[in-house]
């Protein structure tokens, strides 16, 4: 059984359907990416999994439980860590307070995990009492990942982690994601930067107009003539 299994999912916002008949599965320990043009519905896949977008039909099965239709504040208990694309930290809270809210659903703040986040992102350790809103875009992205890692999630959902980063920081961000995956955390990532994402991942999905188009190993998709022509700019 897959860790995460999306079957024939229609999802959207209110009555507006964005995704139709989406299939997607993620196995334990895998690094899976979803790419596709603007408006393909990539982010909506993420939002449907965590309960922000509404699931109209189909199932989202996580560890054997159908979580489609559950509220975001319930799904967070299931072991899914989500890093939204933008506005993913609380700007008037300090770095430390953001991490504390990251562990909000736990009884106590797990100090060793917080230390692990600071070890992973030392720049945050130097700024524990600064407001998250005063951090740079890259630092905010690290903090947002740190918040999600506070729950030691079974799967980490990353929505466009390279968006808004200075070009020279993008490679560094992908390196960090590799490290997180190498340490055993399953990763499902949506990315605009399709070539780099497919190069890094185990498997990839190409979405267009809210539907599945291609699905294969990352390298295979990179080398597929049709995918290159249509989605990777030749």
């Amino acid at each position, binding site marked *: 059984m897959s860790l995460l299994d999306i079957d024939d999912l229609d999802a959207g916002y209110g009555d507006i359907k964005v995704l139709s008949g989406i299939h997607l599965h993620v196995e334990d320990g895998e690094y899976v990416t979803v790419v596709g043009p603007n408006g393909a519905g990539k982010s909506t896949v993420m939002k449907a999994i965590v309960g922000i977008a509404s699931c109209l039909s189909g199932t989202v099965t996580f560890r054997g439980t159908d979580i489609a239709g559950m509220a975001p504040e319930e799904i*967070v208990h299931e072991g899914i860590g989500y890093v939204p694309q933008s506005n993913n930290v609380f700007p008037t809270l300090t770095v430390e307070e953001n991490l504390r809210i990251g562990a909000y659903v736990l009884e106590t703040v797990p100090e060793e995990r917080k230390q692990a986040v600071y070890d992973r992102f030392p720049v945050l350790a130097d700024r524990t009492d600064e407001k998250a809103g005063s951090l740079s875009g890259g630092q905010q992205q690290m903090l947002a990942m740190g918040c999600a890692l506070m729950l030691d999630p079974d799967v980490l959902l990353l929505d466009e982690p390279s968006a808004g980063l200075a070009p020279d920081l993008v490679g560094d961000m992908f390196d960090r994601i590799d490290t997180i995956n190498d340490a055993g955390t399953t990763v499902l990532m949506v990315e605009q930067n399709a070539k780099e994402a497919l190069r890094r991942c185990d498997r990839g999905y190409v979405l267009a107009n809210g539907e599945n188009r291609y699905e294969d190993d990352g390298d295979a998709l990179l080398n597929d003539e049709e995918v290159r022509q249509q989605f990777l700019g030749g």
Partner: protein
Amino acid sequence: MGLLQNIIFGVITGSYIAIAAIGFNLIYGIVNMINFAYGEYLTLGAFIGLFAATALPIPLPVAVLVAMAGGGLVSIVLARAFFTPINQTGPVPLLLTSIGLGIALRNAIRLVAGREARYYDTETTTFRFDAVPDLSVGSVDLLGGFFVTSKQLIVVASAVAVFVAIYGLLTRTDVGIAMRAMGDDESLARVRGIDTQLIRDSVWVLAGILAGLSGVLLAIQTNVSATTGFSQILQILSAAILGGAGSPYGAIVGAYLIGIVLALSTAFLPSGMSGLSSAIAFGILILVLLVKPSGIAGAEVREA
């Protein structure tokens, strides 16, 4: 009376406005509504305290706690009945509902309690400091002898205690940090597992407790009638907006500014113009907002 005495009056007025303005701004920042019925919560708190102190009767400090608890209860019951059901409709329906609720509450209180003002039975000690020398500049005496009463000291001490408690709550406790998180971004708060309805309810209770305390302190200083809270709502609203919409700390700064400006304009304007003192307070509000629309301590509005 010298300038010093009038500044002291302003600080006292600012103190009970500040307590209420913190509550008002917590609702504004976290529940995202302007609650125009909030003045009535002060009135209800003051009457509950009066009832507890005179009809039961219990000692005044206990009656103050009863008024605070009563304010919290009134606030959460009214919110659950009138505001929570239309929470998704946005700020304007919520504002209009609160205006209507305020009118209804005010008249209901008048029907039950009558029109006349009631007084708390308290004793007060006056501390005089007549030895302070005059320091006249033109017709204004900058120093001069002054007095404070024990009641006034209680008001200021209560306000300071509230500031410390609110700061501790908002920075040291999970529920307080969750309140601020929700004020920042409700959708992200849900993703992080925050039960937003629970936090909203906590804010209502907290704001009601603060209104109850502010109402009792106001009533002990002066008196309580059906319009006690309503006559303060514009000052509370101005203090809250002046300090920074949604910011509890800004509300404190705004409240003392409004309090001192009101006191000084009452004291130093020519007698025929003393009715203009609130107009001057609001003039300052307008000026500050023209220069800094988000208020003194307000954050810049975040792009959605």
